[in-house]
């Protein structure tokens, strides 16, 4: 679990190579002494609601709401352990900000997987990168769900999403699990990605992927099903995320293609760089109207919201060199080993009305892209993203806001001792500008072994947090979240 000191020093050296200052050296030394394993540590019990302690600044006036987040937080049991970062049990966290105070509660999603594995005291379920154990009892895909990838408030319910099964339904107040969501009896157990695209009026579009087919889900803002139709995909790519304009679904098909039906899931994929990346565009109003674009090969997990630019389509992507992180890196990460992988860098895609597509790469290191939800599917200029990953450090240490109109990124680095999670945009009540609001998200302070919650002014990110609170606990890094005011 704990990496070698040498591996640490290598990573720390890379971090401090740019600017070697006494501070940087001290930070590097601190890193070397830090338990990196905290990032994928096991949480043994739910976290009762408790107040967080304000340690910096003050809460902005008018900021009230809750940040719900989800991520894996139980990987190891005496009888057997998960072998991949994506296969730990989902722990739903709620950071609430109200009256200038912040509070934290967290509760594991009470899945059939977790119940079985608790009973056996062994992680037995098959996963993204974990082989099934013969003891596993799996009668449906939902039985294997880790419910660990994202979380959304839909019609008064909190949905903990995975990507190979149904949404798990939680009570947003108590975080208690109520069961799985069946959107229509004949669609029970259909997959539902953890990255729905939500229009500004609340309508939800999502995919559920099975090989070279995808279910296109369309839900009303209250979560009721409006339509579910299966479409054919040109190839059986790994699809973690897709994007959408106001009128089109944009499905990016990377050349990490499922070629074998083997376990674990990730072992069935092959990187076929020579086949490039394809983009399938489908009209929301007529799923039969489709176009396919060709791009150079890149790997990805996450896309930014798309928009129409005249008759063209634009969207940003956190482009990886390949999918080595999914195939190999995330297995090493769960064992506390820093990678020797290239971090993702932001890129902008343009799909031309003339059928030609372009990928404009940048040098900006970024992952977990977010933007103003009021502009989903509409023209925007800003992308919020994590920052600071290096080959020796597979987790972010900072946050950035990149302005595509200028190419400029404003960012803040919390330092090598922090692992920074995805941050979301919370608009200032009454404000309309794209940067009139706050970035809200946690970091894991490795030095002090505690989870922190930060609020930054979206227009002045480089000035650092306007408020920081500390929890009583250190929660492992998580994946995705949602802000609700």
């Amino acid at each position, binding site marked *: 679990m704990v990496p070698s000191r040498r591996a640490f020093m290598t990573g720390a050296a890379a971090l401090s190579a740019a600017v070697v200052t006494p501070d940087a050296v001290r930070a590097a030394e601190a890193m070397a002494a830090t338990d990196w394993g905290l990032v994928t540590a096991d949480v043994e019990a739910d976290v009762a609601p408790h107040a967080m302690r304000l340690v910096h600044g003050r809460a902005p006036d008018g900021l009230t709401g809750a940040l719900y987040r989800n991520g894996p937080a139980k990987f190891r049991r005496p009888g057997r352990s998960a072998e991949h970062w994506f296969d730990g049990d989902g722990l739903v966290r709620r950071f609430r900000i109200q009256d200038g105070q912040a509070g934290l509660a967290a509760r594991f999603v009470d899945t059939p997987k977790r119940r079985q594995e608790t009973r056996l005291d062994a992680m037995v379920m*098959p996963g*993204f990168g974990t082989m*099934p154990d*013969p003891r*596993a*009892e*799996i*009668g*449906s*895909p939902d*039985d*294997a769900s880790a419910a660990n990838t994202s979380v959304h408030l839909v019609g008064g319910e909190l949905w903990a999403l995975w*990507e*190979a*099964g149904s949404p798990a339904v939680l009570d947003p107040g108590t975080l208690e699990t109520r069961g799985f969501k069946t959107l229509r*009896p*004949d*669609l*029970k*157990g*259909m*997959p539902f990605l953890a990255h729905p695209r939500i229009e500004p009026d609340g309508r939800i579009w999502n995919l*559920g992927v*099975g090989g070279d*087919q995808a*279910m296109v889900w369309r839900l009303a803002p209250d979560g009721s099903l409006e339509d579910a139709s*299966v479409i054919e995909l040109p190839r059986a790519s790994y699809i973690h995320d897709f994007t959408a304009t106001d009128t089109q679904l944009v499905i990016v098909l990377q050349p990490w293609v499922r070629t074998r*039906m083997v376990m674990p*899931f990730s072992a069935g994929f092959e990187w076929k760089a020579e086949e490039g990346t394809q983009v399938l565009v489908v009209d929301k109003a007529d799923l039969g109207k489709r176009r396919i674009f060709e791009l150079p090969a890149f790997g990805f997990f996450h896309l930014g919201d798309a928009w129409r630019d005249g008759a063209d389509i634009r969207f940003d992507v956190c482009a990886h060199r390949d999918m080595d992180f999914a195939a190999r890196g995330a297995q090493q990460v769960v064992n506390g080993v820093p990678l020797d992988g290239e971090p993702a860098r932001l890129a902008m895609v343009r799909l031309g009305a003339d059928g030609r597509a372009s990928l404009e790469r940048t040098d900006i290191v970024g992952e977990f892209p977010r933007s103003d939800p009021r502009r989903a599917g509409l023209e925007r200029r800003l992308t919020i993203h994590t920052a600071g990953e290096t080959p020796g450090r597979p987790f972010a240490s900072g946050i950035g806001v990149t302005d595509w109109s200028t190419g400029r990124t404003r960012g803040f680095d919390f330092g090598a001792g922090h692992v920074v999670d995805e941050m979301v945009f919370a608009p200032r009540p009454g404000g309309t500008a794209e940067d009139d609001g706050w970035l809200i998200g946690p970091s894991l302070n490795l030095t002090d072994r505690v989870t922190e919650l930060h609020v930054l002014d979206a227009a002045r990110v480089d000035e650092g947090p306007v408020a920081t609170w500390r929890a009583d606990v250190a929660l492992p890094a998580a994946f995705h979240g949602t802000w609700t005011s």
Partner: protein
Amino acid sequence: MLRLSAAALALTLLAAPAAFAQPADASVTLTFETGARSGRVMVALYDSEASYTSGSPVATAAVDASGSVVAVFDNLPAGDYAMKSFHDVNGDGQMNTNPFGMPTEPYAFSNNAVGNMGPASWDRARFTVSGDTAQTISIR
């Protein structure tokens, strides 16, 4: 990510004559706890791993789900058996599946056994019948 074989789960509900080589004085009573009261619970009983795997039951039953749902199999030779069932909630005679082939109607096996990405194995579902034997099966 996970694939269950609907075909493997689907029951072959053919009436199969049983050849009794020993006294057939045992019985099995299966009481089903259902989540819906429509349609019928389709039950198939097997007396060997071979019959279980190939889907050649020694006896079958189709029990209306509107009342108490009990399937009784009498006049069985003592021995090992296993049961497969599904609840045909909409009464169309099929075990319905979603567009990706996963079952959408409840199904169950004896011992309330659960498979591992497929039907429960004979080893998990097998139970010994001698005299009057009863099980309560949750099929939801």
